[in-house]
């Protein structure tokens, strides 16, 4: 075992950048303190439940619904963010207009604003008697207190991720590539769909994954706008809090474990796709 391990470590070529051991040590310690210990605590608690107990708690109908709502709305919100985030990044990179810097700074606001504030503000707007809600009400569209409201809140908190991951990649796109497409007879739409967007795919996927992960775990903004009806608009993080308030720690742990597992699985899949596409056409010209 030892020799094999050694070979793997040494497969890193002797490097001109010193401090690999130190840096890796700090990284591992840090990750352990911040991430690994809390998560293993969670797993340890849930392992105490026993399989039968765990499955009963985790696949309780209300829990399954809450998980479906959490992952479903986070997915939809991440898709929306992918589309509009790319457009927003495009505008910020490609055009010069007055107020560009202000808009650029505004993109980061969802990071800074307390999510509860965002949730309350969005609820006020989208409630049936709010500015936007009152316009949609006659059309029979309800946003606040439905899953649609959750999506709105998650779009808000996830916005910066796609913009900030796509923006730098977009800045590096060579103007010549577009010109090359044009000289070959491609019209504007073909240039965008066949040349530009595929090049943004890896960055877009990263942004999508981040926005999605953020959406799954989001709590503060959602609980105000969701209405929190069990089976309809109750998200999994809220259900965990409810179980905690009932002192039902076993159920809370079980839900948390399932969430952890699902999130990890989805992020793993996305990262795999992404590294595959990145490997294919990185550092090319």
């Amino acid at each position: 075992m030892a020799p094999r391990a050694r070979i793997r470590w040494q497969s890193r070529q002797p490097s001109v950048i010193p401090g690999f051991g130190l840096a890796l040590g700090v990284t591992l310690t840090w990750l352990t303190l911040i991430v690994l210990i809390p998560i293993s605590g969670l797993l340890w608690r849930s392992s105490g439940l026993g399989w039968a107990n765990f499955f009963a708690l985790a696949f309780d109908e209300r829990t399954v619904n809450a998980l479906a709502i959490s992952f479903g709305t986070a997915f939809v919100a991440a898709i929306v963010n992918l589309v509009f985030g790319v457009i927003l990044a495009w505008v910020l990179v490609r055009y010069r207009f007055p107020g560009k810097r202000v808009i650029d700074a505004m993109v980061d606001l969802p990071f800074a604003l307390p999510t509860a504030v965002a949730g309350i503000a969005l609820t006020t707007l989208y409630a049936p008697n709010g500015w936007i809600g009152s316009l949609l009400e006659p059309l029979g569209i309800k946003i606040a207190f439905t899953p649609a409201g959750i999506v709105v809140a998650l779009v808000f908190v996830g916005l910066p991720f796609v913009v900030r991951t796509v923006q730098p990649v977009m800045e590096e796109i060579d103007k010549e590539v577009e010109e090359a497409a044009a000289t070959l007879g491609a019209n504007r739409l073909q240039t965008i769909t066949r040349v530009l967007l595929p090049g943004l795919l890896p960055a877009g996927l990263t942004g999508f994954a981040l926005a999605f992960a953020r959406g799954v775990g989001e709590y503060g903004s959602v609980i105000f706008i969701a209405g929190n009806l069990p089976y309809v608009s109750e998200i999994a993080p809220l259900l965990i809090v409810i179980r905690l308030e009932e002192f039902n720690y076993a159920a809370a742990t079980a839900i948390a474990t399932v969430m952890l597992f699902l999130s990890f699985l989805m992020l793993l899949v996305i990262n795999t796709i992404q590294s595959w596409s990145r490997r294919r056409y990185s550092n090319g010209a």
Partner: protein
Amino acid sequence: MEVRVQNIRKEFGRYPALEDVSLDIRSGELVALLGPSGSGKTTLLRLIAGLESPTEGTIFFGDEDASKKSVQQRNIGFVFQHYALFRHMTVLDNVSFGLNVRPANRRPQAAEIRRRALDLLELVQLSGLEKRYPAQLSGGQRQRVALARAMAVEPNVLLLDEPFGALDAQVRKELRKWLREIHDRTGHTTVFVTHDQEEALELADRVVVMSKGAIEQVGTPDDIYDHPVSPFVYGFIGQSNCLDVTLSRGEIWFEDRPIGLRAASEPDGPATLYFRPHDIELVDGCGCLAGLVTAGRRVAGTRHLEVSLGRTQPPVEIELPPERASSTDHSRVAFRPTRWKLYRGAGDVARGSVQAQSSGIELAPTGT
């Protein structure tokens, strides 16, 4: 296809990049646009391509006015200095791109597109690499993909912007020869931009020398080298020396003595004498240029000597066979230009004159 550029002017903001440029490019010709950076050569190329639109003037492709057409409609092939390949596409997809984006009624069948792309890859000697991505190719290979991609659309004219500029010397030389072969085989009308005079002279049928947004001279490589029409062309193409001289009664004087060259029809007054380092002969005695050898270096088959002719003049450079030069190192050398040219006035072309020498070389006066 024949390309005619008529009275093109191009300004970027207030800055004029091209001023009243006209140029005829014959069908099937390989033309080099040669000039230092900022001479407007790339701008001219991009105007022909339609990547820029002229401030004034017209460009004809054959008998058709192309200046109103978009770059997509002009059907040209353009090769960029930094390849500009689509890096998320395989080599094959890159080459087929131009055919794949055609509207359905003009698009060949998928199998036909594939066949044509593979044929082109064979032409550019990249068979077997069609499944690779650009990131997996060397610079020279990438540029060949770019050329195949440009030729796939069967362009009216093939335009290359410093195609070998990003490659190292060895690959450059190979690709240069190879481009000439491809051109001879396919017969595309081709225009390429370069700042490398050697590349232009070696590769092109005709060379267009540009400077400061205007065309200085158009001609075959021989014309350009042997009969430069302006001091700029003389100085830019190949090595040259220039000396401030004075004309007096048809004789050329350097400082306080005649140097044995005659320009009988020229009026008296100051002028500038141009000659190339290899166009000289060593002479004994006086009636010549003489000075001290201050430095010597061996370049390939010849020895280059730097000769100081006087304290007020910059040193001139002459080339000699190594065996003759060895005896003159760090000593006095006397020589006389065998082919030379005089320019009068403030950099303008006045009259050039080359004269028959006692050495028997036939040199006719060249008026311009």
